[in-house]
């Protein structure tokens, strides 16, 4: 542990939260249909696309209409991506003549990118042509993120309305978010990354002879353009197998800092935008505070865990050293720890260090962050609606304790909202624990694990948690490219994404129709420290109660085993 390490973690989080405000204010303008500085350039494109989309893109939609549009868009995106991946061998921009993917891998990968998960059962450098990376994966990196952000608009409008009906128009939202938010941010970041050494070329392989005379094949491609939206859209699907640990994706501590700010900044910004549209700026600030506090604690916990020497190092006679297995020298323990917390807190899934080689507690905290429902700060959009569900539940249980029917942001929380909120919350344990429990007894699933014992269990649990939470990171020793894994992971990702979105949209439909109540001295304040504490408590207890037994069998038991071994290293 070094003071620079702590300072780096603190600085990263402060910068990330600070940038959320300009991003959120801009996003709110975009969702509200107001003018933005890039209008002269982008408005004509926006108009053209919406004109192509037809009259459906011009009406105000009920929650059903909005959800139907959202699902239709995602189904279309899935079909296109699946086709591109299957037909890769026949398509251009494929200098290495890579063949199409197997049906189950193409299915898994298409679901993975449409659901903003970016679980990668393949290795990027040997599987994907440049066309697949661009037209297939990069496009869904944009659109799955834009889908999530669109819901921010719908949900915020639901809270702002007084006995309303419409939640806005999905087509308008998704197109405007893509054009006015994601595209400009990606352009800026791609340029910065390219300057810093991230390749941006249409070549794919460069063969060289090293100083010692050995042969080495460098893999390059249009990396910077994809890397930018991969982080900004909390996608996390790397161009390369090593993801953000790869020097071509993340060449320096500076690009690493930018990557971290990018992968959490817009997610926090979604909360800010929600607050502005819903007329609840202070409440949004409280949500940001709760999310950021938990994230900071998690980052600190992982840093503490990763600076402990592991039994393997102690046994080899090293006195004390950080756990550098699976970490890059340029990042060290601090930047790896805070990156791990931010990527698992954000349902991003990019990694700059190998979580599987983390200490049990370090990896366990990352795993728990995913299981908490990807709300710290969560994926773009999805983090916001996840935390709003948590806020509703917190307000409901504790709000009763002030002696009123609970209300949040002026909307009463009643049976319908609770029903949909609970449906949404149920999906995660159902998908994660259900699939893990089944896989835990099936040889066909266990075959894919690279470890045995508690560590293998954590590998298994992490995989399904990552899929259900739409994170996409992994205990990467797992070999998940088999029909069983490809299909069950696809199911896991679908449940975690749309099994959550549909109840949330139904909840928005119930909320929009309610009268907007004026706050009084008897209303539970949802913008102060007490509420922040309450929300943190509910998030931790609800998440902990669901996953404690499973965590006990994985990271916890492994941790105690490690303690026993580090206590007697020379046994």
């Amino acid at each position, binding site marked *: 542990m070094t003071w*620079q390490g702590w300072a780096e973690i603190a600085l990263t989080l402060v910068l990330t939260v600070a940038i959320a405000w300009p991003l959120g204010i801009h996003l709110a303008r975009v969702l509200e249909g107001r003018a933005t500085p890039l209008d002269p350039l982008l408005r004509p494109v926006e108009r053209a696309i919406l004109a192509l*989309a037809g009259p*459906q*893109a011009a009406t105000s939609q009920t929650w059903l209409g909005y959800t*139907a549009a959202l699902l*239709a*868009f995602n189904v*279309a995106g899935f079909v*296109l991506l699946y086709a591109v991946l299957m037909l890769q061998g026949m398509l251009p921009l494929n200098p290495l003549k890579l063949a199409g993917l197997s049906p189950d891998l193409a299915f898994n990968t298409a679901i993975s990118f449409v659901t903003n998960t970016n679980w990668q059962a393949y290795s990027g450098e*040997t599987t994907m042509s440049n066309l697949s990376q661009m037209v297939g994966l*990069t*496009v869904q990196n944009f*659109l799955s993120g834009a889908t999530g952000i669109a819901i921010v608009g719908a949900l915020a409008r639901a809270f702002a309305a007084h006995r309303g009906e419409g939640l806005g128009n999905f087509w308008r939202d998704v*197109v405007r978010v*893509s054009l006015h938010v994601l595209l400009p941010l*990606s352009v800026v970041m791609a*340029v910065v990354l*390219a300057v810093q*050494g991230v*390749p*941006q*070329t249409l070549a794919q392989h460069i063969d060289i*002879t*090293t*100083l*010692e005379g050995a042969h080495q094949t*460098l*893999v390059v491609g*249009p990396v910077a*353009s994809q890397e930018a939206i991969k982080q900004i859209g909390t996608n996390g699907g790397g161009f390369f*197998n*090593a993801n953000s*640990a790869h*020097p*071509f994706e993340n*060449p*320096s*501590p*500076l690009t*690493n800092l930018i990557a971290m700010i990018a992968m959490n900044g817009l997610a926090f910004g979604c909360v800010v935008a929600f607050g502005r549209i819903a007329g609840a700026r202070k409440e949004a600030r409280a949500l940001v505070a709760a999310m950021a506090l938990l994230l900071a604690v998690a980052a600190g916990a992982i840093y503490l865990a990763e600076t402990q020497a*592991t039994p393997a*190092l102690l*046994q*080899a*006679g*090293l006195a004390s050293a950080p*756990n550098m*297995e*699976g*970490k*890059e*020298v*340029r990042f*060290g323990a601090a930047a790896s720890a805070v990156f791990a917390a931010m990527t698992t807190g954000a349902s991003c899934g990019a990694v700059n260090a*190998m979580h*599987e*080689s983390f200490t049990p507690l370090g990896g366990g905290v990352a795993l728990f962050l995913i299981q908490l429902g990807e709300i710290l700060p969560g994926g773009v959009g999805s983090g916001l609606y996840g935390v709003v569900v948590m806020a509703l539940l917190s307000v409901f249980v504790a709000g009763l304790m002030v002696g009123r029917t609970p209300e949040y942001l002026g909307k009463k929380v009643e049976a319908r909202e609770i029903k949909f909120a609970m449906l949404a919350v149920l999906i995660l344990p159902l998908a994660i624990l259900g699939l893990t429990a089944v896989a835990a007894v099936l040889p066909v699933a266990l075959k894919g694990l690279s*470890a045995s014992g508690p560590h293998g269990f954590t590998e298994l649990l992490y995989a399904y948690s990552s899929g259900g939470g739409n994170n996409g990171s992994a205990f*990467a020793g797992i070999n998940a490219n088999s029909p069983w894994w490809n299909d069950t992971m696809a199911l896991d990702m679908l449940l975690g994404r749309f099994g959550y979105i549909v109840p949330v949209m139904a909840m928005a439909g119930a909320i929009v129709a309610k009268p907007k109540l004026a706050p009084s001295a008897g209303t539970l304040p949802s913008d102060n420290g007490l509420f922040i504490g309450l929300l943190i408590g509910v998030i931790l207890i609800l998440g902990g109660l669901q996953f404690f037994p499973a965590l006990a069998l994985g990271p916890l038991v*492994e941790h105690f085993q490690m303690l026993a071994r580090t206590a007697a290293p020379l046994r």
Partner: protein
Amino acid sequence: MLNQLRPAVMSLLALTLLLGLAYPLAMTGLAQAVVPNAANGSLVRVGGRVVGSRLIGQMFTRPDYLQGRPSAAGDGYDPTQSGGSNLGPLDPKLADRIAKSAAALGGDRRTLPADAVTTSASGLDPDISPEFARRQVARIAAARHMDAAAVQALIDQHTEGRFAGLIGEPRVNVLAVNLALDQRFRTGKPQS
């Protein structure tokens, strides 16, 4: 949902053209024009011959070269198979491997830096810690029949500190040091 078919298909196609083709191609054009070296992989040339990328680690085994970390990418530093060992902290395979690496490096194990015996996340880590570099000075100096202080000075020259004093860790780019070694002390060339 059927009436959403047209907007779904039309907007998807339009956005695909814009975001999947126009955006990456424009970025490629821009990067190639403005920062061609960085955009093409930060390649390093010696006498016109490409010997590697500044950003990608290489396998160094010779005693007169600064050596990098153990690598789990393929047979070591294979960019087509980037990745880490993915061994858990309690995995016996990890303990064995680390013990072997430590034995091979020799010297006082208690002061051995962790990066010397661990594989990186990418398997392509171009850097090592200054402590690990320092431990190799005597060996390099001996192999090249040169003054240890000169080798250390060269390593110091290629040591990068934390960005802004806070961000990241101090590190030594192995390929850069080895290129500089070759350039200044021709004696290090292999006697083939």
